[in-house]
C-alpha cells in the first residue's frame, strides 16, 4: 500500500504523508491512503518527535489537533484478524494554512497502554487524552491532570473497551456533598 515515492519526488510535490515518511523512515511502520485519507502508523517512541515535526515544519504546519481517540481491536472482524497490538491511538491533524489533513496512528500494547502526551504542543490534547483514558484506559505519560472526564470517579473499568458489555450497569452512586 506504500505510495510510490520516487515519482512524486521527481515532480517536486510531496504530500504530508510522504514528507513525514521521508523524514522518519525508520519510525514509520505502515502507511495507507484509503479513500484519500492519508494515514501513518508510527512507533510509539517516535510520537513526540513526529508531532513536533508536524507542528513546526513550515511545509506541513499542522496547527490543529482536530481529534484524538483510540480504537480497541480485540476480536477485530469476529476474531479472524489478529492485530499485534490491541489498541491504536488515532490523531487527526489539520493545517489551516495549507488546508491538508493527516492521520497518525500509534499502536499500543494491552499490558502497558502508555503513550506520550501532546499537551505540550497542542492544548486541545488535554481533554481528548482524558477522554481516551476514561474510555479506553490508555495512559498518557506526562499529562498534567489525567482523570476521568465523562464518567464519574467511582466507575470501574473502561466503557469503550470491547470486553466491557454495553449494558453492564454499575450500582448508582448516592448523593454527594
Amino acid at each position: 500500500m506504500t505510495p510510490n515515492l520516487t515519482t512524486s519526488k521527481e515532480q517536486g510535490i510531496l504530500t504530508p504523508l510522504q514528507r513525514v515518511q521521508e523524514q522518519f523512515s525508520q519510525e514509520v511502520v505502515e502507511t495507507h491512503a484509503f479513500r484519500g485519507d492519508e494515514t501513518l502508523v508510527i512507533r510509539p517512541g517516535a510520537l513526540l518527535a513526529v508531532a513536533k515535526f508536524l507542528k513546526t515544519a513550515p511545509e506541513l504546519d499542522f496547527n490543529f489537533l482536530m481529534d484524538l481517540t483510540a480504537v480497541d481491536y480485540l476480536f477485530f472482524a469476529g476474531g479472524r484478524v489478529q492485530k499485534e497490538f490491541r489498541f491504536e491511538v488515532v490523531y487527526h491533524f489539520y493545517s489551516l494554512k495549507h488546508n491538508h489533513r493527516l492521520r497518525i496512528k500509534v499502536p499500543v500494547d494491552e499490558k502497558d497502554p502508555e503513550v506520550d502526551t501532546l499537551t505540550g504542543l497542542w492544548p486541545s490534547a488535554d481533554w481528548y487524552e482524558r477522554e481516551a483514558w476514561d474510555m479506553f484506559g490508555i495512559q498518557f505519560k506526562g499529562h498534567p491532570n489525567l482523570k476521568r472526564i465523562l464518567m464519574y470517579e467511582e466507575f470501574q473499568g473502561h466503557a469503550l473497551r470491547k470486553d466491557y458489555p454495553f449494558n453492564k450497569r454499575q450500582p448508582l452512586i448516592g448523593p454527594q456533598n
Partner: protein
Amino acid sequence: MVTQTRNMLLNVGPSHPAMHGVIRLIMELEGEKIKGVDVEIGYLHRAFEKMCETVMYAQCFPYTDRLNYVSPLINNVGFAMTVEKLLGIDVPERAKYIRVIMSEISRVTDHLTCIGASAMELGAMSVFLYMIKAREYLYELVEEITGARLTISYVRIGGVKADLTAGFVDKAFQKIADVRKVLIEVDELLTRNRIFFDRMKGIGTISADDAIAYGITGPFLRSTGVAYDVRKANPYLIYDRLDFEVPTGTTGDNLDRYFVRMAEMEQSLRMIEQCFQQIPDGAVSGELTGCLVPAAQMVDRAKMGQTEDLIEDEVDLDPTLQGGTKRYHDAINADQKDVVLPAKENTYGNIEGLMNHFKLVMYGHGIRPPVGEVYFPVEGANGELGFYIVSDGRDLPWRVRVHPPCFPIMAALPKCLVGGMMADMVSTFGSVNMIAGELDR
C-alpha cells in the same frame, strides 16, 4: 490586626438557571472576580459511540439525531456522508441539494435558539419568544418534509428518506421571509441596546491563536477573525456551487459571536434560496400522474398474492411523506442495491425487491462496507463536526467516533472566563452555545 482574605469556591451547575445544558463549573472567586475555573462535563453521557457499535449502520441515524439536538439534520448528513465515503458511493444531484437545504434550515434553528437563549439569560425575554416563534416556522418546514419536528432521522445512506413535497418551495420562501422579519426585529431590539451591548462587548474574549491551539472551529473561531469554514475549505455536497460569504469578527468577544451568528443566518437563508433556483427538476413541481394506491391497500394486495400489476402502481404515502413514491425514490437515492432500500412498490410487488429489502435489514447482512477507516468533516452549527468510522467488513461498525465541536470550546472555557466578573459568566456561557448532547455524547 491582620486581616485574612481567602478565595471562595462557588459551584454552578449541573442544574442551574444560567446553564442551558448540563455542565458544572467550579469557580474560584476573589470577591466578584473569577480566579480559576474547573469545568466538569459528562452529565449527559449516553454512550453514543458504544451504542453505534451494537447496531447496523442504518440504525445509527436515530442516535446521531440526538447528538446536537438543535440541528439534528447536520448530524444525519455528516454520518451518512462518512459511511458513503467508506463505501465509495455518490448520491444523486437532487439528494445533494435537499441535504444542503435541510442542513441550512437546521443551522438557522440552531443559531436562533442560541441567540434567543443567551439573550433571555441577559433579561431580554421577548427576544427569546421571537426567536422561538421563528424557529417554529422552520420546524413546520422540517415537519412537512420529514414528518417530525426535532429528532427526524431523515437522511439515508445513499440518499434521503423522502423528496420535497408539492408546493414546498412557495412555503419555504414564505417562511424565509417570515424568519427574515423576525431577524430584523431582533436586530433592532439587541444590536443598539445599551444593556445588551455593555454586557457583551469585550467580555469572554479569546485570541485567534488560543482558539486554534485549543482546536476550536465554527462561529467561535470565526469571531476571532479566522475565516475557517469546512464548507469553503473542503466543500462537500454542492457548497462549491453556492455563493455565500463567511462572516468573521475581529476581537473574539461575546458581541462578535453574536454578530457572526446573526450574519450566518442570513447567509444560510441565501443559500436555501439559491438551492431552490439550482435544484434539478423533480417532485418539487409536484406533478403526480399514474395510479396511486394507499400503502396499506398495496400491502393487502401483496399478501393476497395479487401482484401482477402492482409494480406499475405507486404507493400513496402519508401526507407528511408526499414525496415518497417510486419515481421520487429513484431521483433522491443512489442506484446501489447493496446500500439503498428498494422503493416500497418493489418490496411489495416482486420477489427481487423483497429479497433486496430483507438482505439490507437482517443482522449479519445489511450494509457491509470494506475494511478501512475514514474521517469526514462537515460544518456543524458549532463548528467542524467530524465522524471517524472504522469498519471491519461486517454489518456493524467497529468503531464510530464523533468529533464534537463543543468539546474543544468547553476545554477553552476557562480561558474566556478567568479574569472576568462572576456575572459575565452568564453572557459568555450563553454565547458559546454549549450543547450537552454532542459534548458528552
